[in-house]
Each structure stands twice: as structure tokens, then as C-alpha cells.
């Protein structure tokens, strides 16, 4: 029997902080089969393509961190089977940056096979600048909620 869960609009999601390194970026790119220099792995390519002084992390790394934030909150058994995240990338994330992801429950709606819990998500760097913002949701099966009165 699944453990019951309760969600309320306004609930804060425990934050998640990640410190970006060039090694982490390189591993992420390599794991996806990327070979050769790119704006993520090579300073010269980043300067040529983006006009930046340094490499940047793929937005998909921030996407992955947002998924981790929500998976920890909802539980892998639920989130990995019905989770969504949607982020806009507002500022580059670079090696050395420390990024903190936060979130809040914004809505709960009934669906045919459970309740969809919607959240807002944002990410800020060590300077307090927002690097990404957006939202997500998770379809929580009815069996995880306490029985209705």
C-alpha cells in the first residue's frame, strides 16, 4: 500500500543547491555522446559562438537539477512516472557558480487518474540573480491521497 501524501497550495519545496564545475559539465556532455569542442566544454568555442569569456553549462543541466528538486519532493516512484518540468533559461550558468533551486505548490487539480500538483520553480546563482524560472507538475495517483470523506 502506497504511503499517503498531502499537498497544499503554498507548500514550500525544500531547496536544492548545486555547485557547477567544468568537470561536471564535461561529464554531462560526454555522457550524451558529445565529442569535440563546444560552447560547453571549450572557452574558445564559447567566445566564438556566444561571445562569452567562459564556457557555460547546458540549460539541460539546470533542467536536470529542477527534476531532482521535484523528484525529492514527490518521491521517485511518483515523479519518474508522471513528472513534468518546464524552465526558461534567463542567465548563463558558468563553472564556479552555485545555483539554488526552490519551488512552491501553486495548484492541485483532479484528473482522471489522480491529482495533478502544480509547482513554480526558480533557480538563483550565488549573487541572487535568477538563472532559470518556470514550473512543473506531477500526476499523483489517487492511491497516494488519504481516502475522501
Amino acid at each position, binding site marked *: 500500500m502506497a504511503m499517503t501524501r498531502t499537498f497544499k497550495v503554498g507548500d514550500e519545496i525544500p531547496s536544492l543547491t*548545486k555547485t557547477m564545475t567544468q568537470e*561536471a*559539465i*564535461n*561529464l*554531462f*556532455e*560526454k*555522457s*550524451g*555522446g*558529445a565529442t569535440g569542442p563546444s*560552447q560547453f566544454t571549450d572557452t574558445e568555442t564559447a*567566445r566564438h*559562438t*556566444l*561571445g*562569452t*569569456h567562459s564556457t*557555460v553549462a*547546458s*540549460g*539541460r*543541466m539546470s*533542467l*536536470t*537539477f529542477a*527534476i*531532482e528538486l521535484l*523528484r525529492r519532493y514527490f518521491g*521517485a516512484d511518483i*515523479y*519518474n*512516472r*508522471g*513528472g*513534468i*518540468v*518546464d*524552465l*526558461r*533559461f534567463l*542567465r*548563463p550558468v558558468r563553472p564556479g557558480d552555485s545555483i539554488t533551486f526552490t519551488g512552491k505548490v501553486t495548484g492541485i487539480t483532479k484528473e482522471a487518474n489522480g491529482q495533478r500538483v502544480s509547482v513554480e520553480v526558480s533557480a538563483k546563482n550565488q549573487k541572487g540573480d535568477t538563472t532559470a524560472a*518556470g514550473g512543473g507538475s506531477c500526476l499523483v495517483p489517487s492511491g497516494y491521497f488519504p481516502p475522501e470523506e
Partner: protein
Amino acid sequence: MAQTQTEDKRKLLDWDKLEIGEKLPSFSYVLTQEMIDEYRKGVMDPEAGFPTISHKVDVRPYQSVYRDNGSVNARCAFHCYNSPIAGKRITVQAWIADKYARRGKNYIVTEAVSVDEDGRLLDRVITHELKQPNEVGKKWQ
């Protein structure tokens, strides 16, 4: 001296002519345990369930068809359905989902779904790419 450089046969992107709904070439790959381990180390999360994210499976088929000046990921959405399993062959179908111009900049939206060899739907990814990547350096050097 012999020339070893191969000719780039990809089409040069003509944003105006790009058709929404265009199917991009389907492809498949085997997700290895090594890929999963590297991904988890890179994202500093030993339980990360969707190593498919780093494969950029929506933009990779686009790049196999079109050449352009590069791009920047402006927005990305990811739908989790089932975590992929090491050793399984994954088939990807991607397409051009949308395109739009905003504040004088051009965007292309690609979308892809991944299914494994057992027919399990794994994930769906939707990416908005800004096709003028040097805009990043103009704002944030």
C-alpha cells in the same frame, strides 16, 4: 596534398521556410551503464533517473539535417514517463514543433519522444532554441 575535409551536405537553415511539423530523422542508440554513471556524476545525483536528457535527442536530429550559426537553449520542458534501463536500445522520433520570432530574434522549437525496445514510453522533451547565439555574449559576457 590530399584534402581530407568532407563536404557538409546539410541544408543551410532558412528560418522563413522551415515547416512546423517537419519530421526529423528517427534514430536509435543503446543506453549503456557507463553513460548513466557519467551522467549521474556530472549532475551530482546518484539517483538521477533520466540520463536521456544529456543526449539532447530533439536537437541532435535537427543538427543532422540543418546547419546554422549555432543556438542557445532558451527554454526546455521534460516529461517523465518511465526511467530508461541500461542496455536497452532507445528509439527517438523528433520533429519541428514550432517556430516564432520575438523582439527581433528567431526561435525554433523541437520536440522528441523516446521509446525503448520493449515499447516503454520513456520521456518527451521540448526545446526552444534561440538561433542567434551571440545574443548571450551581448548581454552577459
